């Protein structure tokens, strides 16, 4: 096998992995703090994609800038969904939580379908036409930017959780919700913020991806499943795990595409998922659910 091809596969995989990581980081934050699995995650990503696309097509805003607005909008959506709906099933059986979020996902996906139609779109971006050559391999500028932004956002989130009061409160609540209540933490506010940030992350991921891959509303559910995949592999509730998981899965798929038919590469991640589910559902880095 041509080493150049492999190197290229690795490079593209790592760069695209940043986006995967961002998706996973959002999901794992929600799970880590609230113990809730966001089944509407991928559908929120789809809205991030469409918002970036709207900004690009109507206002000519580059997705690499527009992602911030998309993230902000998704943050608000996340807070609203959490306050209005998810909060009510915080203590309900897991099955109820899953079904509720499945319903939210259905609504998000199909409102997008009704609003934008089923045809695949792609956000126009000046960056995507630029390619950097590093010897025999090339770097897609759009992917590089996506990776850099994703890295920055994840790093920023990491610092936020470690250094700020709100971040520390969030981690404390994640570790011990009752304890947090006892010391007077506004737990509901923490939950709303966590869900909002999670939504913002995946919305940003969607915005960053929008010039790279064509998308349509039906991308929602597969994106959710892909996020679960990554988070399980990297570890539920672990930020570094989610980040690492995103890179691992992306590289595995990228290399897999070299040896297998394109649609078979998903088989690799699903196979990996099944194995990890059976052997170590808490993932490689994670804590038990």
């Amino acid at each position, binding site marked *: 096998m041509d080493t150049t091809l492999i190197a290229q596969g690795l490079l593209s995989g790592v760069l695209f992995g940043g986006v995967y990581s961002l998706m996973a980081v959002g999901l794992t934050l929600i799970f880590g703090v609230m113990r809730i*699995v966001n089944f509407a995650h991928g559908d929120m990503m789809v809205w991030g994609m469409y918002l970036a696309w709207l900004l690009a097509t109507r206002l000519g805003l580059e997705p690499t800038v527009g992602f911030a607005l998309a993230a902000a909008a998704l943050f608000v959506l996340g807070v609203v969904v959490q306050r209005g*709906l998810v909060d*009510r*099933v915080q203590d*309900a059986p*897991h*099955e*109820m939580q*899953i*079904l*509720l979020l*499945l*319903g*939210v*996902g*259905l*609504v*998000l*996906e*199909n*409102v*997008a*379908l*009704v*609003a*934008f*139609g*089923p045809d695949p779109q792609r956000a126009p971006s000046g960056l995507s036409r630029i390619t950097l050559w590093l010897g025999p391999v090339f770097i897609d500028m759009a992917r590089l930017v996506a990776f850099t932004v994703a890295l920055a956002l994840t790093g920023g989130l990491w610092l936020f959780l470690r250094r700020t009061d709100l971040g520390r409160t969030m981690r404390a609540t994640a570790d011990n919700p009752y304890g947090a209540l006892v010391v007077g933490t506004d737990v509901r506010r923490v939950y709303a913020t966590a869900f909002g940030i999670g939504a913002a992350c995946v919305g940003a991921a969607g915005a960053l991806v929008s010039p790279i891959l064509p998308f349509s*509303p*039906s991308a929602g*559910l*597969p994106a959710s*499943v892909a996020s*679960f995949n990554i988070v*399980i592999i990297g570890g539920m509730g672990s930020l570094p795990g989610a980040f690492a998981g995103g890179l691992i899965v992306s590289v595995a798929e990228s290399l897999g595409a070299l040896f297998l*038919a394109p*649609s*078979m590469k*998903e*088989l690799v991640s*699903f*196979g990996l*998922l*099944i194995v990890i*589910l*059976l*052997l170590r*559902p808490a993932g490689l880095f994670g804590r038990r*659910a």
Partner: protein
Amino acid sequence: MSASRGPLLLGAATILTLLVLPAVLSSYAVTVFIFIFFYGYLGQAWNVLGGYAGQLSAGHAAFVGVGGYATTLLSMHWGLSPWIGMLVGGVLAAALGAVIGGLGFRFGLRGFYFVLLTVAFAEVCRIITLNTEAMGGALGLYITFTGNPWQLQFQDNRAYYYVALGLMLLATGVVALVERSRLGAYLVAIREDEDAAEALGVDTFRYKLCAIVLSAFLTGLGGAFYANYLFSLQPNAVFGIPLSVDIIIRPVIGGAGTLLGPLLGSLILSPLAEIARIYFSRPGWTGLHLVVYGVLLIGTVLFVPQGAYPHLRRAWTRRRSGTA
């Protein structure tokens, strides 16, 4: 006891009505009923595992796909009548169920992890089928219309109506039997509290496995009907998550774990899809009925978590007895 005679008479009257209905309905209305019955059937099959045993599966489309493809391939290559191929499809689906359950339950997967396992298996089936030329690949399989009853195909829509009705009654009958048996009592116990059930002598692994195998078998039978009513099998449609969601949404809204829940749910939801198709047939509006599904699902979880049927029954008994 006259108390139990009432529902029985009502049930018999309903079945009788359904039997003669095609004589007075338009062909289009008959189609709507076919969908009500068929999705009610699939929902009822799911109900055994998801409702009674309480193990949420979001990958039931896998069983429809296995059943449909098995039946069709056997018919195409060996001329085996789908009526028999249906049973083979059911058995193969049951085998897949045994694998999923055997692995999942053996490794103690519950709740979210089990849901994800079912989705993963369905996706694996979809991807493999998508890439296997012998099974038609991405284009899928097209069933030629012969109108031959032996091929599970009929000229008259009404014949499909009776087959779908028969399937729905079959599934409901099976669930009714399960409900009144040791299997049913044990499944419900497992759903309510698995550890307590174990302590009372219930082999939780074995019974959960029973539930998934039975559920998968029945769903697999449905696959044969799917193939011979829609005349096409495409991996993304028949193994996809949207179909899985379509299967679970009716019993959940109607009342998971109850005998009539899936049927009520299908009665409410299936016509909605058809209405959306007629009145909003412009290309961009194809998702409208799904928005309504989503809203109903959210509403059910928040306000009527046990489903429409138990809620209605409680309201009915309260009204009759006059007290809460």
